[in-house]
């Protein structure tokens, strides 16, 4: 199995097994507006274990935190630059691990 395949579109399949209570219309992670993404933002497209970060058609990084497992990796990486606004979901919302 090549790295390409391993890095490819399998993440949706993995997240499909998980249980979430999505807080519709209230994303708990937001990206500061930008025209050109920083190196750090680009890194999030690979490192996020839920694949929440993608590059849109204008070359900007966007986040859809519906599949977020609330690990905090992106928060720590951007703590210095302040490019993310990161909060835990409201009580009861977000990922609900069945096994953990």
């Amino acid at each position: 199995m090549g790295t390409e395949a391993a890095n490819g579109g399998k993440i949706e399949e993995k997240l499909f097994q998980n249980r979430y209570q999505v807080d519709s219309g209230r994303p708990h992670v937001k990206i500061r507006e930008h025209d050109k993404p920083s190196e750090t933002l680009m890194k999030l497209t690979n490192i996020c274990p839920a694949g929440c970060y993608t590059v849109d058609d204008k070359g900007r990084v966007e986040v859809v935190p519906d599949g977020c497992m609330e690990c905090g990796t992106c928060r720590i990486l951007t703590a210095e630059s302040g490019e993310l606004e990161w909060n835990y979901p409201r009580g009861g919302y977000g990922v609900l691990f069945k096994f953990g």
Partner: protein
Amino acid sequence: MKEERFDAIVVGAGPSGNAAAYTMAKSGLKVLQLERGEYPGSKNVQGAILYSDALEKIIPDFREDAPLERHVVEQRIWMMDDTSHTGMHYRSEDFNEEKPNRYTIIRAQFDKWFSRRVREAGAIVLCETTVTELIRDTKGRVIGVRTDREGGVLLADVVVLGEGVNGLVGQRAGLREELKPKNVALAVKEMHFLPQETIEQRFGLKGDEGVVIEAMGTITKGMTGTGFLYTNRESISVGIGCLVEDFANSGVTPYGLLDTFKHHPSIRPLLAGAEVKEYAAHLIPEGGFRAMPEIFGEGWVTVGDAAHLVNAVHREGSNLAMTSGRIAGETIVYLKRRREPCTAEYLKEYRKRLEDSFVLKDMRKYKDIPDLLHGSRQLLDLYPRMMSKAAQVWFRVDGKDKRAKEKEIIGSLRRQRGIAGLVGDVVRVARAWR
């Protein structure tokens, strides 16, 4: 509840928070515990191994009704290259004892059980409640918390922060610095379900016996990290974790790394035919003693992962979490009984007691290991590869004489690392280990 005042508020219902809440409630303190998940455990992730000793000191009869999976009779440590593993296995009938030493557990189930015991001990446990900030008095002393519930101000003499590794409350209140990418690992894992008999056949187990595998080598693609595989009753937990800094620099995706690990010829047959029912990710504080924040202050103490209490060398964390929670709880009970205030001056007793326990003794012992692993990538990459190569030369019968084989092995060590490098590695490891 707005005007109600508690002896203690515990933030988080993982092993450390539960240990603290249970200890204080059992001694008659008025305890409120806040958990942001729908149920305790719903936000928590671990391999997971339960260390009996730490829990026995809190709930001696836990074996009667705690949801335990298998007791560990065999530990395998594997050094892997792309096609092989060189293993150290330790299996002993002595681990089939009346009170086993280690168990595999499933955290969502275990944490629910622990939380039930906390409630039975008399604590009030409020789920689906996210703590948003600490409340301080005019002198800066912590006197309570604010939550995302309506009118969510709650007051207490002391706040116990068991909020986990990604602990926003204490960090935003300035009680501890932001975590550094080189001091935390990102781990991902999956739950693979198989019939009980299949697991027992594959691993040579009977009854509730279990096997744990810790793996290192080329599986982490040059990054500092380890993989693991734990047998549960009718599932296998398989996962891999590496430092966040290394992931960020390499561009390797965590799920890609996990998939490659799962497809390794030594791992694949162990998982064959399984149904995957969950994929989880979590951070692990791996910075060791030097990355620890202050763990007590005016009206607050920090326990467990939030206090960076993980022994990365021995892959221990939940026992440090439970023990720090218990000791924090005992300290607060002790102060209450003596009618002393929960100020930093008195709460430093928690730190003192933790220093006297295995928790800070072990943290101190391995304080230089994180830096060692950082500066010596060959320890986790080159050596497993060299060991595999050497084993292959040694075991393959191919008409080459044994002295020539010895020469080949030693020559390969010399070429790839050099005598000075080899000696230097031995000295560095010995020094950090001491």
